């Protein structure tokens, strides 16, 4: 053969991922970890004030309220999500996919929009008053404004987390492990003794994630007048312009979040070691004569918790005049929310790919550290991260950043990149490293390998990560309301600020518009994902 050996120059390595990965990590650290660290240093620097703030009766009350709400919602959402996941994944329940899709939708909405929905049902002029009379309606309304209402709304909002984590956990259970139990016991026993213990870490993780999200929640407790830390941080900062108190309150809030994270890192990481399996199908328990009753109950749950509040909002909004007024008040915010979320999601996607690569293709020790850091960025309450961003970036000479939509984009980049990186990381885990090693042996550069080998292989995950990032940016209230500069109000911020001084039908119409916009995004995105998957299957 006429081939000549390659010259040493031709063999020079072009495999240099470090600068790209290092730059991505540095930018995320600067946009998220630095503000949080700054906030921590400020709080430590004002140790006396922080300690004093922690020990007042009011702070202890806030601590109790926040912890109570977090724990109660985590338990309720964990229980409801687990039950529904078992029914959807392990039984022949009618239309389980449709049930899962409907159940998941509230997660994509700003939770305070759900609170508005329930207000349209349980408020003094809500649907319940029309059905049960003013006496019952008044009692329901009194009950709604307080911890019970906050628990109801946030449980509906976060049940999908437990539902999906448990559903994925159940799909990972080897059907042969269930069959091995079924040789000796019935299906109910197999689910109770085999499936549920195996997905216990998923249930616990879902409850912890829910707890962390609830303790950072601003919109719902503030709307329902239930005092919690996150609302207090925002009030101190936005209403009283008291950054020192906001920092002190953030410290208390961060203690709750860190406690939740410590439990996840300390205990849940040592999970049951799953063994190799041969079959990928799932065991399905027939409900038999119970199928109609269980089906009606599960669908009734979804109808009441998801569809009823939307129906209430639609009824409250009334005719086209409300929608016209709503659109007039928030039309620009809708357009702004859409383009800002699209820009942020695209940037997040690039960083998510680089950071996922860094986490998945690095040693286990470094992987754990990075994983914890990214989880912290996602778990940090939006109000807290917002105060940290203001501490770092509110400086003379960089007003172009602090005074424009860029500060919101930077905050979203820090807050939601970890979530997208987790989605991409799961796909990278399933990608054999041999694909990249083969490209490297063929002397492809690292960048070319990522672009030509890795990206096409994980395209569905990238599309899913973009959609998730887009939706989370679109629904964000807590971070955006803390840092938005004049003229950069997003839709949730606009709706939240209009709530106080607009007629109820207009607010309801705004909520319906938000729901409609989110539904359009979710349906379009889901259709796009399905098209990508089908194209790959061909």
């Amino acid at each position, binding site marked *: 053969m006429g081939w000549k050996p390659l010259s040493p120059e031709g063999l020079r390595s072009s495999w240099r991922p470090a600068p790209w990965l290092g730059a991505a990590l540095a930018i995320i650290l600067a946009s998220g970890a630095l503000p949080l660290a700054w906030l921590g240093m400020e709080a430590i620097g004002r140790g006396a004030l922080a300690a004093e703030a922690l020990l007042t009766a009011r702070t202890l009350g806030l601590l109790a309220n926040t912890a109570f709400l977090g724990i109660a919602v985590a338990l309720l959402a964990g229980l409801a999500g687990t039950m529904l996941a078992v029914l959807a994944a392990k039984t022949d329940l009618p239309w389980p996919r449709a049930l899962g899709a409907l159940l998941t939708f509230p997660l994509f909405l700003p939770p305070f929009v759900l609170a508005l929905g329930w207000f349209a049902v349980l408020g003094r002029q809500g649907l319940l008053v029309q059905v049960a009379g003013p006496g019952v309606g008044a009692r329901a309304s009194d009950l709604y404004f307080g911890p019970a209402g906050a628990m109801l709304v946030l449980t509906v909002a976060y049940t999908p987390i437990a539902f999906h984590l448990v559903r994925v956990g159940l799909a990972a259970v*080897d059907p*042969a*492990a269930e*069959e*091995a*139990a*079924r*040789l*000796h*016991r*019935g299906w109910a026993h197999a689910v109770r*003794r*085999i499936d549920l*213990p*195996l997905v*216990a870490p998923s249930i616990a993780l879902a409850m912890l994630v829910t707890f962390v999200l609830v303790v950072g929640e601003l919109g719902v407790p503030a709307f329902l007048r239930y005092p919690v830390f996150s609302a207090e941080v925002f009030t101190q900062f936005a209403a009283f312009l008291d950054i020192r108190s906001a920092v002190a309150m953030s410290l208390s809030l961060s203690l709750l979040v860190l406690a939740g994270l410590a439990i996840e890192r300390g205990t849940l990481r040592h999970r*049951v*070691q*799953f*063994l*190799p*399996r*041969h*079959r990928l199908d799932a065991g399905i328990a027939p409900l038999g004569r119970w199928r109609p009753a269980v089906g009606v109950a599960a669908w009734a749950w979804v109808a009441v918790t998801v569809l009823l509040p939307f129906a209430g909002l639609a009824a409250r909004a009334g005719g086209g005049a409300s929608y016209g007024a709503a659109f007039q008040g928030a039309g620009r915010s809708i357009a702004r929310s859409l383009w800002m979320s699209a820009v942020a999601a695209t940037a997040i996607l690039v960083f998510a790919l680089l950071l996922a690569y860094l986490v998945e293709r690095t040693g286990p020790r470094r992987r754990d550290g990075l994983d914890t850091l990214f989880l912290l960025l996602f778990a940090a309450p939006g109000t807290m991260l917002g105060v940290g961003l203001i501490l770092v970036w509110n400086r003379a000479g960089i007003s172009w950043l602090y005074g424009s939509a860029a500060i919101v984009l930077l905050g979203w980049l820090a807050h939601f990149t970890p979530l997208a990186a987790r989605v991409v990381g799961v796909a990278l885990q399933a990608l054999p490293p041999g694909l990249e090693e083969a490209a490297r042996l063929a002397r492809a550069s690292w960048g070319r390998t990522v672009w030509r080998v890795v990206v096409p292989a994980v395209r569905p995950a990238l599309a899913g990560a973009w959609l998730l990032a887009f939706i989370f940016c679109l629904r964000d209230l807590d971070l955006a309301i803390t840092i938005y500069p004049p003229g950069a109000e997003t839709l949730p911020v606009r709706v939240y600020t209009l709530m106080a001084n607009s007629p109820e039908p207009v607010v309801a119409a705004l909520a319906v518009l938000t729901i409609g916009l989110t539904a359009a995004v979710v349906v379009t995105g889901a259709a796009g994902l399905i098209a990508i998957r089908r194209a790959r299957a061909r």
Partner: protein
Amino acid sequence: MIRLEAVEFAYGRTRVLDGFTLDIPARAITVLAGSSGSGKSTVLRLIAGFEAPHRGIVMIGDEAVSRDGRIVVPPESRGVAMVFQDLALWPHMTVRQALDFVLGSAVPLAERRSRIDTALALVGLEHHADARPGRLSGGERQRVALARAIVIQPRILLMDEPLSNLDPHLRDALVTELRRIQTELALTVLYVTHSREEIFALGDRIALVGVGRVEQSGSPRELYERPSTAVVATFLGPGALLPGRLNGDRVECALGALPVPPPANLPAGQVLVLIRPEDVRVASAGPFMGRVERTVFTGGCFEVEIAGPEWRLIAAVGEELASRSEVRFSIRRAAILPWST
């Protein structure tokens, strides 16, 4: 003991079993052999009760446990134990907890303990009773699966390629142990495999599954020496299949005339002649002559490919033969099969 009668079964549109009929005797190991996708594992799932035959009957003893799309007796009431292909061990339970789970609280505590200890001793796992499967080696996991199956003293033990993931050394050891345990407990075992070594080491009887139905069943020796089809002949061992013409007590093939082994039970006409490697004797006085095409050392002996005009044989010989050399040989024995293309 177990009977599957005219069973039909399909996964969606893929027909897996079609008129499958098989009798499995009690207190013996029946090996269900066949290539991948032939429906062996489906037969186990039908007997266990995880699937119902779309048509046909599954009987255990005198009882029809499934028939015509209906499961009459659910899995947990059939007295059947199973060792799954991937073992299906419960990762969250220790060995003792897993055995205790299958025995259930209906069995008194003292008896449960005693049975668990006996089962663990039988498989040599006394010292790992409190370990979880994730901490055990492949061979130990295999033993846990076996202990979990025998601790209930099942009527029937189903084994779905349980040794397929083990190295040959460990597999040999476990085969010997399995045979000992089966004899000790007088178990009725249905063992699925496609490994020739396991077929011959374990099988009191073999049922060889072709596409959706039993090709032939009988003792291992019977199937090896007198296969009824080319599928059975080639599955159970190497050998040459030569077209031939049966004429009375002789068969004419490309090698020449060979005596027919009794009983032929075939009408005169076109047949296939099966010649196994151990039936080819290389000797200077042999009546046939051919050229050595290839020699491979297989451990204890050499596998030699000998070819002539329109024929090709494999011989197992003790000495290495030079490639392209001419050798003389005789045929000790040949089997006659019905003609098939």
